[in-house]
């Protein structure tokens, strides 16, 4: 057992810095690197909300003036996920930046194929952070994997001077500083922090809607100390995001036994080995929640989880499996609660699992809504407009 001993010896020689959990409280270390001129830390500006995290550290969430780090899977395959985030933020009156100077975190590919390395992944992250810093808007990360991966990158940059040196060299070529934000914030944390403001603008009654929650692994398992845990939700024993929002909107949150299980996404598997993804998703998640909780909808908060849980049910029907649960992101659910159009804003026609019974229980006439959406498409087809815009959404 030589390796663990060697590893611990080297850490002892370097001076242990871990204070709690798997990772240390990074903020002191960020501040130290900032003081020594090694990095630039982007600080929050304007109004913030404080929320509790897994080990008690308070985490600030900036309300407005946010730089939306979009998700390739959301924008590409579930666009109503992204538009719902924007729509809710606009309704609440907070300004934001929707940048073109943004790449994906590239972590979906990295976790699938490993055709990258620590320096490249860190450089991609820092380039995006620097792009946000240049605008003055504070980054808000849409994807759970981007959020998890960026926390890994932050830890690696703090711990390894040689990696910082490599990344700094790359950033110098790009003419950008090595920037890290003072907090890495996931959009579902913003929704959690803003849940009372969202509920105050609620126009649809959701008290007859039963939901189950699937928490995203990369949100609360990767660098877990940043995730929001609130004593008021699950007694602080599970992450509070999604659930806290659903409760604030008056929905009935039902429990099921495989809450902690992954969805089965697998990164590589969802694209080229879907037999595994379909099996795990339907057998361990959808069937369990259907049998034990019979929800109208499962809410989740990550690109891969929505895709997996939603797309895996179709083929399972051919095998007479007990599936058939609508799948929405918490952002789409909140938007619907606030009166968003199910097709123009939430873009539910991109989803596969049957969401129409859920809409009916919400009091939404989906046939009429679809006709309204078709009317808007007609305007585009007739050349009256090239694109729909936010004014067309209400």
């Amino acid at each position, binding site marked *: 057992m030589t390796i663990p001993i060697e590893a611990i010896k080297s850490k002892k020689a370097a001076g242990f810095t871990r204070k709690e959990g798997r990772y240390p409280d990074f903020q002191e270390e960020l501040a130290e690197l900032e003081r020594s001129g090694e990095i630039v830390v982007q600080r929050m500006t304007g109004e913030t909300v404080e929320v509790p995290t897994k080990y008690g550290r308070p985490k600030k969430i900036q309300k407005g003036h946010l730089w939306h780090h979009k998700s390739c899977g959301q924008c*590409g395959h579930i666009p109503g996920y992204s538009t719902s985030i924007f729509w809710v933020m606009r309704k609440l009156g907070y300004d934001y930046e929707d940048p073109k100077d943004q790449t*994906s975190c590239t972590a979906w590919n990295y976790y699938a194929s490993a055709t990258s390395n620590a320096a490249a992944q860190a450089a991609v992250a820092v380039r995006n952070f620097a792009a946000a810093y240049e605008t003055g808007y504070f980054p808000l990360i849409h994807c759970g994997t981007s959020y998890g991966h960026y926390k890994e990158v932050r830890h690696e940059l703090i711990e390894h001077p040689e990696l910082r040196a490599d990344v700094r060299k790359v950033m110098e070529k790009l003419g950008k500083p090595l920037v890290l934000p003072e907090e890495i914030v996931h959009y579902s944390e913003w929704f959690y922090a803003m849940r009372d403001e969202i509920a105050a603008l609620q126009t649809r009654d959701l008290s007859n809607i039963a939901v189950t929650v699937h928490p995203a692994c990369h949100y609360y398992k990767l660098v877990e100390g940043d995730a929001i845990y609130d004593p008021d939700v699950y007694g602080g024993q599970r992450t509070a995001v999604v659930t806290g929002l659903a409760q604030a909107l008056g929905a009935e949150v039902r429990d099921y036994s495989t809450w902690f299980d992954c969805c089965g996404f697998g990164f590589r598997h969802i694209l080229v080995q879907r037999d595994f993804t379909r099996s795990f998703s339907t057998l361990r998640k959808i069937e369990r929640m259907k049998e034990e909780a019979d929800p109208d909808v499962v809410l989740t908060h990550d690109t891969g989880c929505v895709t997996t849980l939603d797309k895996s049910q179709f083929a399972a029907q051919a095998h007479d499996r007990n599936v058939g649960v609508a799948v929405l992101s918490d952002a789409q659910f909140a938007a619907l609660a606030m009166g968003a159009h199910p097709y123009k804003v939430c873009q539910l026609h991109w989803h596969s699992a049957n969401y129409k019974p859920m809409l009916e229980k919400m009091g939404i006439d989906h046939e009429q809504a679809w006709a309204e959406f078709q009317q808007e498409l007609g305007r585009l087809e007739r050349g009256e407009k090239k694109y729909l815009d*936010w004014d067309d959404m209400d």
Partner: protein
Amino acid sequence: MTAMLPTPSVYFKRPDVAGHADVPIEEKQRLFDEVKADVRYKDYLYGCYECGICVAACPSARFYDFSPRRIAQASAREDVELIYQQMQEDIWECSQCFSCLRCPRGNNPGGIITIMREVAVNNGLASAKEALAGYSRIIYKIMSTGTQVSPDMLQRDAFPDWGPETGDVSENLDLWRRALPSETLHTTSTGWEVSDRTLVELYLIWLSTGSLDMIAEIDGSLHSILSELMEELLEDEGIEI
């Protein structure tokens, strides 16, 4: 260099029944040394209580002959024979969900696998070639556009198991994208509109960090296509590589 344990693990398959060609022990040791040399390795392995909590949490363990515990144990014992076998047979089954971070000893078996995969890719191992055989299009997309999955990937014949809605998306793609209210989302071949300047910066990252060259051993033609594409754009921008 640490000597191999005298008794092979019970999980070790004899070369004549393993699904890959054998290589000399020195080559196995060299590959493991590459894994150990990664800066992250020391953060990922502390020991093993053999409790199996990681296996209980692991989705891949339910469907494959795969175990995150075996990965951690093989690494802790420096069992290079078994590690090589795992690099050729096991590592691509991991879901990279990191449920195994529940380890009470603080290990990160999923992270060890990430490094093992990188070494497998870097060295053109057969397992990496096989696992990524259907994946070239995705690597091309992420490296060339900075976005991984695009709306035009949703084709009926590519995702027949995702239901008829996939075909609906494909047939109405341009119109449905133009109906999105966010002006960055009107694209069909990328998730959103990425500026040219951003792509230049991304290409500089791939080239400066050796990331692009990692795929040379896995897919030579893809490597050539991407190299040409990146060099051409950088030349157009007057940037010396």
